[in-house]
């Protein structure tokens, strides 16, 4: 009967309380105290005191029950050995203190010898059964704890998208399950320079790293001092090593813990394999994209630099060889084409340099309070030749405030937008440039009456080396608008292209105005 009570208490104790609370506490299965045999003697002493208290009122047969209870408690709380000791010492104490002749091991009535023998046998049986149950209970609890740790780990691992995230998860769960410092090392194991803003991982000595390499090579767990190194294996491939360093050197030695480390390793290995594969695919994509851009850039650079160069070389050699035989008009024509091609070359080199500097971060916006009217004036002056008499309708409100921008870069942005408009819209079609301040942001709009830009292409036109459908052979490498976007971003602004009412494209640049206007100098006197 007693064992079944113990079982129900321990297994379901958290939910039901079939025993009174003090007894419940007494029978709770817990970790063994440090000196169980000392506790066993204490239990016998307590039982003896209780028996003395009951002696005047109770029969001897009932007093023996006190000692039997002591045996059961010792079996539950202290394990088998201490419990058997409790039985022997307890029964001896009973004989010595209570059986007539009291205070002597000589018994007056030999029937008590029979009682004594049965007591010993019952005590040993109860001890054995109870402590077996106790061991099973402890094992069940440990299993439960481990499977919970494993479940929580595998659930956390599914959310990890990068090696760095996995490392964090591993660190956290190794700490929870083993009270150990954990570290995930993708193969081949090596010490990485400490990165800022990440918790310092478990440090590794040269010997530790050698052990980690050995774990990878032999596919067997390795141990150096308190450090346990478990290889991570997926489909016969070693993807890394799980390192656990316990505070106490003996913590990961029990069979259950070693099995749990293995289960951890299996789960982590699968997750790491998945993440590494993903990262590899991403890197491959990145490389392919870089490769594509490099190819586009090379072909564009060689095309756009060589075409005007070839034309210049051709024209110049003709002028040198046959200059005297050409009529004035032809000669002039060749000379002008040389000038125009040199201009194109210069523009292209400038764009390449600008974009490189903007993208490499080597260019800082030197912001100052600028007058938009001045910036617009400079841009218009620079594209004057290119406009070739085309009308640009400029709409600037008279009360436009100063704006805190890099004047040179903003001028370049407008020049590129105007050049772009001239290049991709029919000769002679009108352009419009407007500016306005709405709240804290300045809006600059360059609009044309060209064919417009299809919705699907509107985002792409700002990518470098992009040329719209139908403009594959246009001159210029498709850098102008990429530069515009880089300049806008450098100013914490943005640029987009909209469809214009009545046809055409409308490039809208939005920039922050830079906050409060600087105070203006006073000039209150009468005009001279």
């Amino acid at each position, binding site marked *: 009967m007693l064992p079944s009570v113990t079982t129900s208490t321990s297994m379901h104790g958290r939910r039901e309380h079939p025993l009174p609370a003090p007894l419940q506490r007494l029978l709770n299965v817990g970790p063994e105290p440090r000196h169980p045999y000392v506790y066993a003697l204490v239990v016998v002493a307590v039982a003896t005191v209780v028996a003395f208290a009951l002696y005047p009122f109770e029969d001897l047969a009932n007093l023996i029950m006190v000692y039997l209870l002591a045996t059961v408690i010792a079996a539950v709380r202290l394990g088998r050995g201490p419990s058997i000791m409790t039985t022997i010492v307890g029964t001896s104490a009973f004989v010595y203190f209570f059986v007539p002749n009291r205070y002597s091991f000589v018994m007056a009535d030999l029937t008590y010898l029979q009682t004594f023998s049965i007591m010993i046998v019952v005590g040993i049986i109860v001890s054995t059964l109870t402590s077996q149950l106790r061991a099973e209970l402890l094992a069940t609890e440990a299993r439960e704890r481990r499977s919970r740790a494993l479940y929580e780990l595998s659930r956390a691992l599914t959310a990890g998208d990068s090696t760095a995230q996995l490392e964090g998860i591993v660190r956290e769960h190794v700490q929870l399950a083993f009270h150990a410092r954990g570290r995930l090392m993708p193969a081949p194991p090596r010490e990485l320079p400490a990165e800022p803003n990440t918790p310092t991982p478990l440090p590794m000595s040269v010997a530790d790293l050698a052990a980690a390499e050995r774990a990878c090579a032999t596919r067997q767990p390795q141990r150096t001092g308190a450090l346990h190194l478990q290889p991570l294996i997926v489909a016969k491939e070693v993807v890394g090593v799980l390192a656990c360093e316990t505070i106490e050197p003996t913590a990961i030695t029990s069979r259950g813990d070693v099995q749990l480390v293995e289960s951890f390793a299996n789960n982590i290995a699968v997750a790491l394999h998945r993440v590494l594969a993903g990262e590899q695919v991403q890197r491959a994509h990145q490389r392919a994209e870089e490769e594509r851009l490099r190819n586009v850039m090379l072909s564009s650079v060689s095309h756009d630099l060589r075409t005007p160069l070839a034309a210049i070389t051709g024209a110049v050699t003709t002028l040198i060889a046959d200059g005297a035989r050409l009529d004035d008009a032809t000669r002039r024509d060749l000379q002008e084409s040389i*000038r125009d091609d*040199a201009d194109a070359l*210069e523009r292209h080199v*400038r764009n390449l*340099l600008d974009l490189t500097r903007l993208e490499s971060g080597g260019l800082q916006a*030197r912001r*100052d*309070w*600028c*007058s938009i*009217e*001045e*910036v*617009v*004036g*400079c841009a*218009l*002056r620079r594209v004057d030749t290119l406009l070739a008499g085309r009308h640009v309708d*400029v709409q*600037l409100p*008279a009360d436009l405030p*100063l704006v805190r921008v890099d*004047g*040179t870069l903003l*001028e370049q942005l407008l020049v590129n937008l105007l050049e772009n408009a001239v290049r991709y819209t029919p000769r002679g079609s009108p352009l419009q440039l407007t500016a306005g301040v709405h709240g804290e942001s300045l809006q600059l709009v360059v609009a044309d009456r060209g064919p417009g830009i299809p919705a699907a292409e509107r985002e792409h036109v700002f990518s470098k080396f992009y040329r719209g459908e139908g403009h594959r052979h246009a001159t210029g490498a498709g850098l102008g608008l990429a530069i515009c976007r880089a300049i806008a971003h450098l100013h914490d602004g943005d640029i987009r292209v909209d469809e214009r009412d009545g046809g055409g494209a409308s490039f809208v640049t939005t920039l922050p105005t830079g906050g409060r206007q*600087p105070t*203006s*100098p006073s*000039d209150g*006197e*009468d*005009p*001279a």
Partner: protein
Amino acid sequence: MNHGGTGPHVLVVEDEEQMRRFLRVTLRVNNYRVTEATTAAEALAMAQEQRPDVVVLDLGLPDGDGMQVVSGLRSWFRGPLLVVSARHQESDKVQALDAGADDYLTKPFGTSELLARLRVAQRHFARAAGAAGNSDRGLFVAGELKVDRDRHEVTVRGEAVKLTPIEYKLLVTLVRNAGKVVTRRQLLREVWGEQHLDEAHYVRVYMSNLRRKLEVDPARPQLLLTEQNIGYRLQVDV
């Protein structure tokens, strides 16, 4: 190294052979006498020895700073000094201009631009020498703009324009340097005084006012040109 021509004597300081060749040919055809130097040290020695009328100096010299030549020359040389530089070197240009260079050219530049800058600079020095420090007097005419500095009257397209004292001072400073670039710092010093050298936006506000009063279309100025990040230029026909 002294070659050809009977006109003004130009010292060209330039380390790149192709640029020297272009400058040599162009200047000689336009009747300048040309002397060439390729390093800063050579330039300073050559200037002392040959006493040129004009110096054209590339700021991107290899043996140190073209700026060194500017300050070295300006300690004694009173003639026009033009600096040549690549794009993206605005701060170098401004520094050279503030240190006493008269004007600048940005590579690549054409012949007409080079000759126009040279003519403006020479004319400025001739006028300054003739007026003997009293160059703020007399009548100035540029296109439709007339500035009568004796009577403090400004007319544009035949109509009188009322300017505030600061606007007038700003305009007269530009008139005194007509055709030449004037840095914002120079304008701030002349008009507002030494204590306002960092208030670049003063100039922008007043230039904007001036344009509104003098230009037909302030967004497409014909007279008061902006040299982005450097300064301003009162356009004259040369």
